[in-house]
């Protein structure tokens, strides 16, 4: 009997979360250690799966299946391929670093980690799910704790507003997607939610064209697609650091991934029909998101809008519907996840010390926190798509795919890169260099070792993928090939 390793990954966080709730609330140290232990297990196993996945064989591996509600054809069905495996690893990484960053959180850490871990289980569950019902089930599990995490531990000024806005947006999105999913279920006549079976259901082209937008855009709301993106910067900003990391790093990928897995892969004809619209909207994401990021005065909002811009690139990659574009989108999901987690970690560290995020009031932080500045610069270079960093490795194939699909879009979207360079350089210059305002002089405490580990891990991954794309690109490409196969080998 083989070890059900994916199930262990999925359920470790939630089980740990429940166990943490059993620890008395004032034993904060034990709570944190338990959280750390759970995240190490999840990360270690994700890494193990990542390394032992047989790349030459490809396809879904580590598959587990158990009957869940047999009467409705619902099963617990998990497996990984080249598309979702990097995302599982990403979740492990963000979970681990998120726990490290939250070590200093002093307000009810027990409940905080419990909710965070329920969220993590939901995320893992969606990424590995091969059953539509299973996927949607974990999707809701992932969305709900977000409300509590932001509303309770968030930034006082906007937390209630942001939490409500985010939850409403995402629920509406998922309800719309659910309608589409039910339509698929009933039309297929297979009496099954098994996605691998539904892939072969041969839905009529008309049916696909009708329902594709509901499914795709329903999920893409969580991916931040324009014009449904505006919950995301508010949510990012209001959330506490570790939650922002999860939120931008992983949750937005959840939306994008589900839009790909359910929308594009199950309704390929619909995807072909609607791809021009997605291309158009996602181009707006890339360029408009970058422009809005440039005019923000709040450090955290800059990063929040940069996510809107970068997720646009993921959507662009999807909408190319070709091998290069999809490979790039897969890589971009991973790269952006790690990068934005790094960004929010840095923003959190600066905010914890300065108690302000107004860019005009900050300055000179590189002297007090050199490693933080360095990490932010690495993230910034990734974000600019600088060669030698993972952003380039991801964006380059996306643009290759765009040339094939729609050259005009490639040229317009490329503007986003220059604008990104401008706002990133502006933030680096204003926050980390220049002279430090007098009120901070001598008051900026250095970061602790746990923070250092988190930053080094995140930045190291970005550089590793950048200089040696072979650690990830071929894997993602095999996943993209699978999508291409469903699209009819286009």
């Amino acid at each position, binding site marked *: 009997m083989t070890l059900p390793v994916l199930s262990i990954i999925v359920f470790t966080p939630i089980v740990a979360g429940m166990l943490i709730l059993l620890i008395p609330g004032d034993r904060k140290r034990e709570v944190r250690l338990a959280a750390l232990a759970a995240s190490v297990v999840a990360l270690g196993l994700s890494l193990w799966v990542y390394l032992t996945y047989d790349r030459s064989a490809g396809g879904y591996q580590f598959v587990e299946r158990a009957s869940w509600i047999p009467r409705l054809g619902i099963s617990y069905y998990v497996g990984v391929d080249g598309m979702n495996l990097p995302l599982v690893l990403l979740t492990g990484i963000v979970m681990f670093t998120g726990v490290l960053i939250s070590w200093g959180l002093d307000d009810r850490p027990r409940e905080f980690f419990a909710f965070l871990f329920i969220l993590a289980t939901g995320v893992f569950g969606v990424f590995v799910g091969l059953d539509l019902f299973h996927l949607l089930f974990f999707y809701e599990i992932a969305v709900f704790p977000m409300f509590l995490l932001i509303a309770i531990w968030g930034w006082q000024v906007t937390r209630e507003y942001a939490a409500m806005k985010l939850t409403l947006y995402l629920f509406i999105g998922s309800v719309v997607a659910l309608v589409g999913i039910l339509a698929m279920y009933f039309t297929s006549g297979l009496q099954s939610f098994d996605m691998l079976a539904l892939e072969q259901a041969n839905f009529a082209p008309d049916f696909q064209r009708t329902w594709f937008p509901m499914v795709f855009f329903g999920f893409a709301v969580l991916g931040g697609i324009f014009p449904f993106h505006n919950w995301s910067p508010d949510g990012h900003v209001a959330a506490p650091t570790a939650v922002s990391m999860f939120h931008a790093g992983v949750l937005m990928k959840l939306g994008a991934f589900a839009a790909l897995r359910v929308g594009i892969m199950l309704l390929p004809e619909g995807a072909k029909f609607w791809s*021009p619209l997605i291309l158009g909207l996602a181009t707006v994401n890339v360029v408009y998101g970058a422009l809005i990021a440039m005019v923000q005065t709040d450090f955290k909002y800059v990063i929040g809008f940069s996510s809107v811009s970068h997720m646009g690139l993921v959507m662009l990659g999807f909408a190319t519907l070709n091998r*290069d574009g999809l*490979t790039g989108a897969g890589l971009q999901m991973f790269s952006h996840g790690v990068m934005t987690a790094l960004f929010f970690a840095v923003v959190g560290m600066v905010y914890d010390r300065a108690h302000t995020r107004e860019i005009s009031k900050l300055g000179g932080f590189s002297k007090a926190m050199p490693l933080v500045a360095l990490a932010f610069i690495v993230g910034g*270079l990734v974000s600019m798509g*600088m*060669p*030698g960093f993972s952003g*380039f*490795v991801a964006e*380059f*194939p996306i*643009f*290759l795919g765009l*040339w*094939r*699909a*729609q*050259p005009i879009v*490639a*040229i317009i979207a*490329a503007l986003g*890169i*220059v604008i990104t*360079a*401008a706002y990133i*350089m502006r933030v680096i*210059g204003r926050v980390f*260099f220049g002279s430090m305002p007098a009120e901070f002089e001598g008051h900026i405490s250095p970061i602790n070792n746990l923070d250092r580990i988190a930053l080094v891990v995140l930045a190291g991954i970005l550089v590793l993928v950048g200089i*040696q*794309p*072979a650690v990830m*690109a*071929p894997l*993602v*490409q095999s996943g993209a090939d699978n999508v291409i196969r469903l699209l009819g080998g286009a």
Partner: protein
Amino acid sequence: MTDFLSTHVLSIILLSPVAGAALVLLLPASRVRAIRWTAFVVSLVPLAFSIWLWTAYDAAVPGYQFVEKAAWYSAIGSSYHLGVDGISISMVLLTTLLTPLALLISWSIDERVRGYMALFLMLETGMLGVFLSLDLLMFFVFWEIGLVPMYFLINQWGSANRNYASFKFLIYTMAGSLGLLLAIQLIGLASGTFDLVEITSRWTALNEPLTVLGLPVALPIGTVKAIAFWAFVLAFAIKVPIWPFHTWLPDAHTEAPTAGSMILAGVLLKLGAYGFLRFVLPLYPEQAQSFAWVLGLLAVLAIVLGAFSSWAQDDFKRLVAYSSVNHMGFVVLGVAAAAQARGTLAAADAVIAVNGAVLQMFNHGLSAAGMFLLVGVIYERTHTRDLTAYGGLFPLAPVYGGILIFTAMASLGLPGLNGFVSEFMVVRGVWPIFTVYTAVGMIGLLITGAYVLKGLGKVLHGPRNEKWQGHDLEIRRREIVAIAPLMALMLVIGVWPGWILGVINATVLRLFG
């Protein structure tokens, strides 16, 4: 051992600086002396290997030598592919030579020395990568990587107006490389590979219209090539820089720390010119031929207007900065002539012109680096770059004065020194191809004399500015050590250019003969 060396020497040259940077970063920040020496000694490693490379390189063998190829980003068909020919090997030698000298002159940096030295070494890897890459994507990677350390060197260690200058430098270059990136993608798409050697044959032979999904008609291949051609030209033109894309240069050069200016003028400008020779001419021979007159015209404008601008400066460093526009104009003029003469009877003249252009790249590297070094020396002593604030300093700093005159003469093109050889060859080669341009360019040569002498006169001669009486303005021993190799090479190339021209010529003949 020799086997291992000859199959890996390029990787060693390319990667030893970045390994050295990592080493430097491991040292404690307070050990300034150790950091400086480590960085300097590390930078001698690529120099030693490139000298070995120079001796082992066989000019008679056609094609690229010391080729290395390994899988890199196989998902999109790009590989780690290195190699050198006569053009790139001289640029590699120039880069590895200038870096240790620039580090030597950086002893005066005493703020955050560790970061400075590490960035400098990373910069060296970026520059070497551009010259060594035989894969378009790798080329682009290094092209961009070099930008980042330079940005921070100017932004963090530059003088008063550094924020403006560094931002302008970055945005100009990135705007140029954006087009380059799109064009590289287009080429990769059309030819299915990024390997330069394969592309050179496939892409140029490509005659089918390029079908792009989503467009109603297939793009005529001529249009595609013309778009890609202009994207390449623009990126390289900004880097060289060709008039009117040069305005970032005086700012960046003036604000950069001395060693940064040395590398900027000595090597970074050559990246653009190298791009013309390595990519634009071989990949777009027809487009280049039809637009050669534009390129030639801009080159002449750069020569003449660069010289006039330089003459008008009262800031010593700005004067030297504008002189780069003037001197690089000759390189571009040679390139334009080669583009124009392809397949005509004048090809033999074009070979002379390109030989001159490549040698001019090398020579300008020596003299511009030397001039910036000397400007840095006098600035450090006097804390001013204002030419009107100097005056009659020769008696106060006789050794410095002698070195300055020598270097300035090399820059001016005095026969017997290096600048004369290359400029003469360019002019000789271009004359039959672009007679009018060459004649107009001569005006620039005249003004070159005017601004060089203006600089010398204001600093060394004329009525003594009594303010400096009693100041120690003399050049230090370490600085003499840094400039001595440059002076030696200026003289050697001026008297006996054969040792380097032989290597360059063999490759140029094969490419353009």
